[in-house]
């Protein structure tokens, strides 16, 4: 087109430009299409499809599926045969079909007729009735009505006949077609899985041309917007928002676009990104508590969930033990993915090391409940609490508020001034394991560093050493001034150190304290007191305390710890004054050289102080007063501040130092009770962006020092955890190479955490975030909340030091399967008095090795005793023997370390070394008795070294609390915890009187009750499986024999396998559909399976006549046997129960049991004593007591309580004629629960 000249533009030129630009546009569209087709995630999806195809093909060619395919052929042939056979009857079928049509037609006619007759009759009836009423003629129309009724009846009969005819025709047809139908359904059932796999393969990789083409087109570049098979997968989390630079938006996670199998089982061994998540029970699966569709990925893992690109997702190289900073993977990724850190994303993905930190953000109200699944962060939480981090660094939601350090309000009755000075200067020099951190003499006040120059820069230089010495001296002076002197009364009794050694041992001190030598020293004895066992570090290590404390103070402290420090964890053991005096004599006299043993280099001396340094410190602290005022005070010219007196000056400076260092945060100091803590609040610490952290020059220094590469430095510098770890390891290191005024320097003290502790605490602190994620916070229900509180109290009161709270377990190969059972290890041989200590597999192997070395024999079998019913294995109390190699794993019980301290004492006495003797010499047992006898509660000495371990353990050691909630009445448990009564009078170990905060005792009792309730389905399933496969001596007449009774009749058989149980279930209508996986889930206590499938297991149980007493019913523990109606009805039987229980020729309970405060006949054998029977009615749940009477060994394997009612034929007929064992137990129970109402002559 030519230029007409009437436009301002040149058309031809424009057209050219247009051509070029549309060409460019087309190109860029093409480029876009091509680029889009090549996006990395599509490659991953294609790769995954290949994997799936290969797997499906493999599955189809597996023997199982081949067999299925083989069966399919024969089933198809059978179907074909049936079809052919049916075709032979084609004529019959056709005829029948016609006849059916005819019959149906007739039925329709007849039915319609009947319908209309019915209506007609009803109408007529109404009209006639009306007539009758109006006309007063009751017989009007009777004939007509009768006729109509007859017609209707005939029609109904006719209708019924035609229906029968139709039905019979249908039946005839069905009979002819039945073969085909049966063959079809058989084929379908047998090839269900096969068909599924084939369909899947067909959809993934169509074998026909059409399908192939269709798939090509679907994913073709440019056309793949219609219905592609490769597509972005995402979850949109409406409630869980992301805060992106002041914009709050829904969180969208697309991670599973590449991580295709993350929520699918069976891809565990595939390489990333196709690996299955390591714990589907807990995460991602639909039935888990964290389903993918509700929580997504980035809430836990962080990183950018909307990125579909390896780098932009902010993946993190992983660190492991061999590669602590993850440089190996770092380099690998740089090469493979051109990986680099995303500098503009504030939430880099967490490495596996710190992943547990994410638990905190949602679980602030349930920290105790997640301990098992998140051990590292829970440990961090515990350390945070134990070391009292919260007292300087506020964390809003933290439930603990007590001051972690001892009160200083009365310190003068305990310590002397010089000791305090040395302690403040460096607490770890006296007790390396103390939680008190080191505050002075740290790197940013290095001894030779010039901290200040005196006299306003005109005087001499003051070095770090002097500065610190003066600070310590002034703090001590301040404390001395502030706290009034307290004089404790003299100890009123003469203490006996020998007896004190024993009281110290048996009353329970060693449950929380230990005497372990400090690092580097090996204990010279095998005595448990010298081992650090975790629980026995709840209180301080007592080595060296005799050099620290005052004897009168110790005596009063033992008798009443709260009087000195009202927030102490130390409970009141209710010891007698004599016991307290004896312990005091033992500790202060220290015959064993333990309590005066202090680390090398520990010295008690006052801290030096120089008036010039003091004055300089005062100048810094009181800078605002101005030079003149300060000089006036120094010269003694200010009447209220006579600082010319060095003591007055020290006190003034000391107070400033106490305030500056925040001593009052941990310790109660009179006058400073309500001063605010000095540390940064940590409630939202981890929401701080990395650039807000002061890194100082540490990264550079590190690089210089360690020669780290840039990457390593990046790793250190750009992640919060790097900063945290450094802070916890070397709290003052961010001051390095900086010039700072003395009072501006970092103040965080040095805790000497180990690497593991630092990791744990950092993990916890990294979880202190204030995201919108908090919307997903777990809000515990009433049960969970009280279990959480209960667990916290159990931990804080250290219940598990003495009591086994949860049993340990052994995992072993058994009949081709790996089985995990609750069990305790048994002695390796009859000559070994005690079982080996149960820790983990490595621990067991070490025990075996040392046994083999000592005996020069090879250990052929390891025995362990079952602690609960284990189908196909055995009953509680049975000992299972397996070869050492067959044991796959061992876990320790939770709690009960102190049991060994007790049993060791009764068997071997106190193992001590003679402080005078040379190394490796003179290890001997020390007891009160010359032969090794032990003092009993009645003050008599008795030998126990030849006794059986089980007897000592069950009689003298603290009781186990496994399933305690099933055993105890909750109200009694509350009361007992608050005010313990003497229950097992033979025990010298004391159940302490704890000072519970309101609600704490209740939470502990509730915890056990709820725990038993939650645990019950697991027990039920296992017991059912055992009971149904068990052989019994007698034929049951009664179908519903409760479990413990049935257990006494066992003659063989150890229960059904899961598959056998499931087979039975599927023949039982009420339980049909129960799967092996569900049973397995229930038996390992997996909540979702319990919710979904336990009702079926219960239905199966009741269908089979199985009965197991249920656990605690929430609410009350009403004792049925005390109801007036029950008592009236059972009156005579209560009498019988009383005689049966107490007669010497029958059960003879009083021989061993205390009763109403009266001692048993065995008053001279405390080893035989049983708990007071009078307490039964208020203490024990009826169900438990009944189970207990049936078969005590089922509950406490190894107990001395015999099975009293297991005789066949039933005994005691003289006392209760024609009675069964069950009758006898019922009458004894009636008596026990009405004990107070039936005084018995023998009482």
């Amino acid at each position, binding site marked *: 087109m030519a230029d007409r000249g009437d436009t301002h533009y040149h058309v031809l030129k424009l057209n050219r430009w247009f051509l070029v630009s549309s060409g460019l546009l087309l190109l860029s569209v093409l480029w876009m299409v091509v680029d889009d087709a090549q996006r990395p995630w599509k490659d991953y999806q294609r790769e995954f499809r290949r994997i799936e195809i290969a797997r499906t093909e493999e599955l189809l060619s597996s023997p199982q599926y081949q067999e299925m395919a083989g069966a399919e052929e024969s089933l198809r042939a059978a179907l074909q045969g049936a079809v052919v056979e049916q075709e032979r009857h084609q004529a019959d079928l056709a005829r029948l079909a016609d006849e059916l049509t005819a019959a149906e037609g007739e039925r329709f006619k007849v039915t319609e007729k009947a319908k209309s007759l019915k209506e007609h009759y009803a109408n007529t009836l109404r009209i006639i009735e009306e007539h009758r009423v109006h006309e007063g003629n009751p017989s009007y129309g009777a004939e007509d009505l009768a006729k109509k009724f007859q017609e209707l009846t005939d029609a109904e009969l006719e209708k019924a006949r035609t229906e029968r005819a139709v039905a019979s025709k249908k039946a005839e047809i069905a009979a002819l077609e039945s073969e085909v139908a049966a063959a079809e359904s058989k084929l379908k059932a047998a090839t269900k899985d096969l068909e599924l796999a084939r369909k899947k393969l067909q959809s993934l990789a169509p074998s026909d041309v059409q399908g192939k083409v269709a798939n090509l087109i679907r994913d073709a570049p440019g056309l793949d917007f219609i219905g592609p098979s490769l597509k972005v997968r995402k979850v949109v989390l409406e409630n869980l928002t992301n805060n992106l630079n002041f914009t709050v938006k829904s969180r969208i996670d697309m991670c599973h676009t590449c991580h295709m199998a993350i929520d699918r089982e069976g891809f565990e061994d595939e390489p990333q990104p196709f690996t299955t998540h390591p714990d589907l029970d807990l995460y991602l699966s639909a039935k888990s508590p964290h389903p993918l569709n509700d929580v997504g990925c980035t809430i836990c893992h962080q990183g950018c969930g909307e990125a579909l690109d390896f780098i932009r997702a902010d993946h993190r190289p992983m660190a492991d033990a061999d590669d602590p900073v993850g440089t190996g993977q770092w380099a690998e990724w740089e090469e493979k993915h051109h990986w680099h850190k995303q500098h503009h994303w504030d939430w880099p993905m967490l490495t596996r090391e710190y992943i547990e930190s994410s638990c905190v953000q949602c679980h602030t109200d349930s920290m105790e409940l997640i301990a098992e699944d998140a051990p590292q962060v829970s440990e961090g939480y515990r350390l945070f609490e134990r070391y009292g981090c919260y007292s300087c660094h506020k964390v809003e939601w933290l439930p603990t508020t007590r001051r972690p350090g001892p009160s200083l309000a009365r310190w003068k009755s305990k310590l002397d001034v010089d000791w305090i000075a040395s302690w403040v200067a460096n607490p770890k020099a006296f007790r390396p394991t103390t939680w008190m951190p080191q505050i002075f003499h740290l790197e940013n006040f290095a001894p030779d560093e010039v901290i200040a120059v005196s006299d306003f820069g005109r005087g001499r230089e003051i070095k770090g050493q002097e500065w610190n010495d003066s600070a310590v001296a002034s703090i001590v002076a301040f404390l001395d001034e502030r706290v009034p002197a307290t004089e404790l009364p003299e100890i009123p009794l003469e203490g006996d150190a020998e007896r004190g050694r024993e009281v110290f041992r048996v009353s329970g001190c060693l449950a929380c304290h230990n005497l372990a030598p400090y690092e580097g020293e090996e204990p010279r004895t*095998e005595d448990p007191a010298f081992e650090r066992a975790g629980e026995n570090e709840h209180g301080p290590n007592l080595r060296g305390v005799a050099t620290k404390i005052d004897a009168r103070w110790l005596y009063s402290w033992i008798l009443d710890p709260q009087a000195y420090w009202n927030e102490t964890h130390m409970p009141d053991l209710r010891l007698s004054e004599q016991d307290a005096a004896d312990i005091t004599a033992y500790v202060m006299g220290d015959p064993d050289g333990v309590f005066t043993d202090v680390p090398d280099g520990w010295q008690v001396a006052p801290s030096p102080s120089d008036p010039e340094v003091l004055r300089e410190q005062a100048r810094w602290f009181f800078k605002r007063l101005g030079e003149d005022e300060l000089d006036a005070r120094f010269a003694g010219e200010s009447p209220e501040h006579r600082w010319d007196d060095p003591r007055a000056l020290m006190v003034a400076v000391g107070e400033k130092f106490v305030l500056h260092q925040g001593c009052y945060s941990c310790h109660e100091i009179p006058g400073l009770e309500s001063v605010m803590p000095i540390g940064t609040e940590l409630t939202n610490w981890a929401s701080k962006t990395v650039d807000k952290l002061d890194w100082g020059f540490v990264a550079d220094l590190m690089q210089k020092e360690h020669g780290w590469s840039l990457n390593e430095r990046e790793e250190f510098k750009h992640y919060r955890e790097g900063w945290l770890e450094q802070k916890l390891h070397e709290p003052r290191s961010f001051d390095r190479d900086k010039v700072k005024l003395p009072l501006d320097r970092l103040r965080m003290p040095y805790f000497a955490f180990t690497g593991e502790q630092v990791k744990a605490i950092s993990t916890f602190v990294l979880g202190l975030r204030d995201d919108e994620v908090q919307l997903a916070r777990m809000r515990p229900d009433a049960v969970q909340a009280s279990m959480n509180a209960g667990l916290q109290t159990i931990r804080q009161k250290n219940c598990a030091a003495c009591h086994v709270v949860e049993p340990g377990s052994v995992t072993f190969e058994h009949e081709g399967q790996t089985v995990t059972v609750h069990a305790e290890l*048994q002695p390796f*041989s*009859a*000559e*070994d008095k005690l079982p080996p200590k149960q820790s983990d597999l490595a621990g067991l192997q070490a025990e075996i090795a040392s*046994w083999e070395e*000592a*005996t020069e024999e090879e250990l052929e079998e390891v*025995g362990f005793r079952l602690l609960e019913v284990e189908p196909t294995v055995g009953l509680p*109390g*049975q*000992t299972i*023997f397996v070869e050492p190699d067959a044991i796959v794993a061992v876990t320790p019980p939770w709690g009960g370390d102190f049991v060994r301290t007790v049993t060791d004492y009764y*068997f*071997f*006495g106190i*193992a001590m070394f003679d402080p005078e003797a040379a190394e490796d010499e003179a*290890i001997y*047992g020390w*007891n009160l008795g010359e*032969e*090794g006898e032990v003092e009993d509660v009645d003050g008599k000495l008795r030998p126990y*070294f*030849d006794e*059986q371990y*089980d*007897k000592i353990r069950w009689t003298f050691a603290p009781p186990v609390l496994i399933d305690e909630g099933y055993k105890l009445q909750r109200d009694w448990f509350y009361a007992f915890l608050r005010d313990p009564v003497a229950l097992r009078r033979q025990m010298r170990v004391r159940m302490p009187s704890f000072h519970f905060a309101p609600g704490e005792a209740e939470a502990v009792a509730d915890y056990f009750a709820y725990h038993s309730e939650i645990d019950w389905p697991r027990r039920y399933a296992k017991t059912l499986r055992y009971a149904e496969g068990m052989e019994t001596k007698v034929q049951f007449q009664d179908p519903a024999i409760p479990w413990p009774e049935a257990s006494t009749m066992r003659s063989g058989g150890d229960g059904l396998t899961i598959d056998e149980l499931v087979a039975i279930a599927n023949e039982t209508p009420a339980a049909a559909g129960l799967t092996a996986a569900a049973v397995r889930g229930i038996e390992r206590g997996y909540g979702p399976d319990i919710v979904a499938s336990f009702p079926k297991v219960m239905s199966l149980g009741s269908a089979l006549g199985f009965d197991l007493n249920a656990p605690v019913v929430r609410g009350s523990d009403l004792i049925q046997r005390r109801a007036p109606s029950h008592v009236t009805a059972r009156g*005579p039987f209560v009498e019988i129960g009383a*005689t049966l229980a107490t007669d*010497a*020729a*029958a*059960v003879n309970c009083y*021989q*061993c049991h205390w009763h109403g405060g009266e001692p048993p*006949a*065995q*008053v*001279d*054998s405390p*080893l*035989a004593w049983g708990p007071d029977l009078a307490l039964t009615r208020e203490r024990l749940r009826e169900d438990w007591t009944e189970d207990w009477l049936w078969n*005590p*060994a089922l509950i406490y*394997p*190894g*107990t*001395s*309580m*015999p*099975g009293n009612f297991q*005789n066949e034929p039933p*005994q*005691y*007929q*003289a*006392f*209760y*004629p024609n009675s069964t064992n069950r009758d006898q137990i019922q009458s004894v129970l009636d008596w026990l629960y009405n004990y107070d109402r039936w005084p018995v002559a023998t009482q």
Partner: protein
Amino acid sequence: MKLLTALGILATAGAAVALNDTPVIQSSYLVHANPPAAGATTGTITGKILFDGEEIPKPGKLDNITEKAAEGCVAGGLPNDEDPTLLVDKDGGIKNAVIEVEVKGAELALSEKPIVLDQMQCRYEPHITLVAVGSTVEYLNSDKVSHNVHTFPTKNEGFNKTIPAGSKDAQKLDKTEAIQVKCDIHPWMSAYIYVTDTPYATATAADGSFSIPNVAPGTYKVNVWHEKLGKAKGEVTIAEDGTCTALEIKLGEKKGGGRRR
């Protein structure tokens, strides 16, 4: 009700008499399954187990028998308070030690006679019972008071049941070991069941002597066990003519209250 009870007691007394049908109490129930052929030369191993120590221990007394605790045990008196756990005569002979001779191929048959461990006057009778592995042991209570039989095995199944006055119960023992039997109701009562797999075993008499007949010529290892004094080993040779020098094996005192192992 009282009348009923009284009648009942009479009935039980009758039953107890019937039960007590003179049980044969013996210490060893070991029966040869394959004794050496009649006429073959065999020897008898004899010997003594002696105490090894400076001072021969005096017979001990059970000091926890009190009138109240032992009520009903013995009409008008207290049970015998001799401590059966360590009995050494004036010449040092140890009673109730067990000797086992390791003879390869020797097999045990199960005893046809019932094996009875009796509880009589609140003591076990006998103190030590030798039984073949696989035997069933009856726990009989001939007393007028109830006992409980509480066994402390390492390998066999545990047993802890009340045996009411005048009744009995039984248990099969499938593994070889020495099992302590105790009564928690009368804590001084203690006995051992020694489950063995060889017929060549016996327990010593009051003077520590023993004799094991019918042993084919050869050299054998001998194991000695005593509940308090532990284990010892020895060797014995029976000459081709069946003679054999008397064995003397010494058992030392274990130190009470020592550390484990």
